């Protein structure tokens, strides 16, 4: 079997399983999960086969001659629209983690969804989702990517609203669908723009042909000052902002936690949101073409600004959350921000590396939290937990592994290596005199500290101390279908990082083959940039920040665990420990005020308006402000951004209401008339332009 036919075959089992379950086996629960897992397993085998073959070929060869297979789809006269598969080192990396996480999550779902009345339907939907993700990964042009992108959007909608009898769930589903749609429209515009300029959407031409790239970079676009490449890149990036939940379109992701936990793990942590990052990584040659100043091209500038801001901003919010899944949701947003910001400073490989590593540990964390939720009989408030370490040992240890990876615990976790590479790259950019580099580095480093802190807070609140509620008293370990995926993922969360150890790292660099990942994935771009030499400054800083954050979290929450009834840790912090917190948080405080002052002011104002009681805390202690500001961002999030969107919608509604309602007559022939007018206009414009009149 050739590699390209294997790539095609990856797509078949999931979609087949979807149709089989939907059409025939809806009634048989065991059969449907059997089919779905079987399909996932087949895809897994095929994908790993490709990974092995790709590794054997080596990055350089695969990067130079990617496996490319075309299937003509719609021949129209002289042009042919094709579907195709495209396997290059980046695809291989993606296939590696997507197939593993998908399989793990499928198996996990058997335990998590046990007893749900819509069990079969759930497996059908996640099969369709897996189809979308695999298709997106192996797609060979932007059109096919967009098609699968939208298939995943649909699945996301279906799965977030899976328990549609809950009003919050279906509202979240609609919100997710609409919010991502904003990005998608821009993205489609970008794709259409590229097509109109080049007549093709194939990766092979758009991202690899230097002549085309150069031409795109030098042609001015319709918007003054931007080249075609820059404008198209910005539009594509808008799609990423929606899909990967970056500021200001991140609002849907926390709400999406209304879906079942495997969905949160799969869609909203491991794979779908990764698709957005994958898009920008894939399009990086286009985004970075014409790089002149140290600050980067307009799309890179946008990515750096938005990514770093999001990374920090979301981390602060995560500090103040009590829902076990919401903490993880904000953490996901924050980590995606890391990857985007890395691309903003040109760290192509580091972004891909963190993408893979993050997928492993975030899937693990979500599945772990799902395990906790099942053990707790579907209660998600961390204030009601505590002491689960003894009741759920496997969940605890794997969760700790994931948490440490997320925090970047030195040496033994994947998160450390990947995050460190991003930070080193950002630091490098900063050293070479780019203000964007400083901006990105500082925000990301602070974000790393916060990340470690909230992770430890979460672990402590959930697992340490004594049970704080009835449910926690009676918690139990979950069945093997749930724990085995946890263990598998924990293995990867800990060890995956060793494929990307910097070459000159003492001892380990030689031991693990000298930054294998960098060379492999870096070969995707035809001119590979050499990995940075090891710089001890950012490395030390990130180790200190990671460990410091973890220690801080332990100091506050783990050293003297909460007792039952002490509901709000923030109030507790404010009341008794505020002096300690004050000293510890002084630096964060400063950076908060220095970098996102306007947001905080706005937040403070909103906060005061909503809840007078807590504002005093800010006035009393700056340390508390750091904690509170996280919460403020939560409010900003909900009130300013959601409120803004809502009021805009309401405004449009009112506009329609108070206007003559002229267009909406409900009579089909009026619509046809409007259609005819526009068709005639377009033809006219096209013809006049074509004739050069």
């Amino acid at each position: 079997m050739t590699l390209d036919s294997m790539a095609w075959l990856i797509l078949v089992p999931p979609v087949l399983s979807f149709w089989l379950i939907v059409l025939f086996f809806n009634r048989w629960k065991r059969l449907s999960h059997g089919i779905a897992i079987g399909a996932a397993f087949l895809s897994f085998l095929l994908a790993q086969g490709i990974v092995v073959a790709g590794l054997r070929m080596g990055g350089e060869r695969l990067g130079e001659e990617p496996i490319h297979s075309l299937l003509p789809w719609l021949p129209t006269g002289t042009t042919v629209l094709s579907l195709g598969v495209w396997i290059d080192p980046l695809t291989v990396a993606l296939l590696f983690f997507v197939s593993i996480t998908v399989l793990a999550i499928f198996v996990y779902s058997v335990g998590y969804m046990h007893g749900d009345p819509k069990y079969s339907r759930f497996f059908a939907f996640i099969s369709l989702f897996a189809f979308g993700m695999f298709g997106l990964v192996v797609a060979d042009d932007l059109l096919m990517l967009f098609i699968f992108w939208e298939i995943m959007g649909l699945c996301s909608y279906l799965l977030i609203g899976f328990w549609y009898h809950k009003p919050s769930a279906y509202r979240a589903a609609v919100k997710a669908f609409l919010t991502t749609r904003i990005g998608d429209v821009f993205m489609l515009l970008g794709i259409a723009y590229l097509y109109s300029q080049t007549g093709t959407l194939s990766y092979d031409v758009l991202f690899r042909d230097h002549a085309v790239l150069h031409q795109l970079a030098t042609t001015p676009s319709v918007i003054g000052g931007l080249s075609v490449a820059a404008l198209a890149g910005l539009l594509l990036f808008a799609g990423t902002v929606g899909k990967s939940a970056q500021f200001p379109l991140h609002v849907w992701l926390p709400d999406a936690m209304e879906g079942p936990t495997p969905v949160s793990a799969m869609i909203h942590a491991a794979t779908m949101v990764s698709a957005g990052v994958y898009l920008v990584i894939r399009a990086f040659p286009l985004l970075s073409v014409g790089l002149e100043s140290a600050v980067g091209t307009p799309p890179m500038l946008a990515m750096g600004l938005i990514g770093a801001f999001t990374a920090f901003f979301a981390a602060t919010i995560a500090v103040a959350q009590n829902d076990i899944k919401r903490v993880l949701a904000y953490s996901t947003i924050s980590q995606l921000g890391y990857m985007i910001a890395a691309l903003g400073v040109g760290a192509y490989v580091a972004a891909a590396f963190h993408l893979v590593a993050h997928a492993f540990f975030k899937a693990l964390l979500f599945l772990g939290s799902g395990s906790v939720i099942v053990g707790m009989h579907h209660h998600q408030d961390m204030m009601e937990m505590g002491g689960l370490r003894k009741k759920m040992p496997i969940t605890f240890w794997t969760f700790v592994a994931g948490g440490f990876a997320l925090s970047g615990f030195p040496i033994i976790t994947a998160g450390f290596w990947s995050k460190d590479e991003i930070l080193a790259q950002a630091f490098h950019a900063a050293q070479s005199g780019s203000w964007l580099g400083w901006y990105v580095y500082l925000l990301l480093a602070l974000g790393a500290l916060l990340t470690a802190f909230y992770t430890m807070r979460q672990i402590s609140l959930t697992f340490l101390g004594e049970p704080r509620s009835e449910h926690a008293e009676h918690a139990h370990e979950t069945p093997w279908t749930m724990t085995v995926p946890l263990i598998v993922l924990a293995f990867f969360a800990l060890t995956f990082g060793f494929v990307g150890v910097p070459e000159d790292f003492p001892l380990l660099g030689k031991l693990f083959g000298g930054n294998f990942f960098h060379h492999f994935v870096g070969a995707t771009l035809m001119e590979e940039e050499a990995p940075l030499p090891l710089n001890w400054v950012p490395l030390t800083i990130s180790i200190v920040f990671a460990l410091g954050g973890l220690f801080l979290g332990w100091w506050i929450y783990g050293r003297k665990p909460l007792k039952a009834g002490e509901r709000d840790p923030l109030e507790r912090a404010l009341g008794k420990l505020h002096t300690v917190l004050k000293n510890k948080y002084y630096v964060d405080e400063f950076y908060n005020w220095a970098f996102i002052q306007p947001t905080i002011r706005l937040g403070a104002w909103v906060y005061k308006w909503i809840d007078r009681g807590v504002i005093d805390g800010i006035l009393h202690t700056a340390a508390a402000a750091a904690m509170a500001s996280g919460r403020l961002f939560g409010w900003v999030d909900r009130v300013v951004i959601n409120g803004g969107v809502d009021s805009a919608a309401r405004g449009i509604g009112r506009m329609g209401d108070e206007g003559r309602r002229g267009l909406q007559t409900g009579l089909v022939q009026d619509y046809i008339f409007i259609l005819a007018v526009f068709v005639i206009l377009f033809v006219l414009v096209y013809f006049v332009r074509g004739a050069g009149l």
Partner: protein
Amino acid sequence: MVTVQQVVFALFALMTVGGAVGVVAARKLFHAALWMILSFFGVAGLYILLEAPFFAALQLFIYIGGVAVLIVMAIMVTRGIMGPKEPVFTYAVGAAGTAFAFLVMLALFIVNVPAWMGSAPTGEVAPDGMRQLGRALVMPSAFLLPFEVASVLLLAVLVGALFIAREKE
């Protein structure tokens, strides 16, 4: 000099357009359907003139034998036997007229492409064109995928139309 073909063309063109005008203007819907069939016939004749007899037969088979039959039966089911007297047009006559005029003017404008004015085709029709078309429709490198999609569409239509039109208990 008027050639035989031009005369035949004029005849079929008259049939086509006359039938179309009949569709628009006929008071009784049944008559409109009959005019439509006349128009279809004209188009079939033009296909023969264009040396595409297969499509002429398809035109008869699908449009007249399928679409027109469906439409006539729908008319007979919905309007009683003869159909009561009622206005033919909606308020949108003016708009439609404007669109019509614009479209025709646009066509007159657009058609002035030199390559389109020549009266001789650029080549002969391949003698085994139909065989080639048949092959192309099932060849993976040509139209296999659209062809299969079309078959799925037809199946969906079969089921969907039955489902929609069915009397619900």
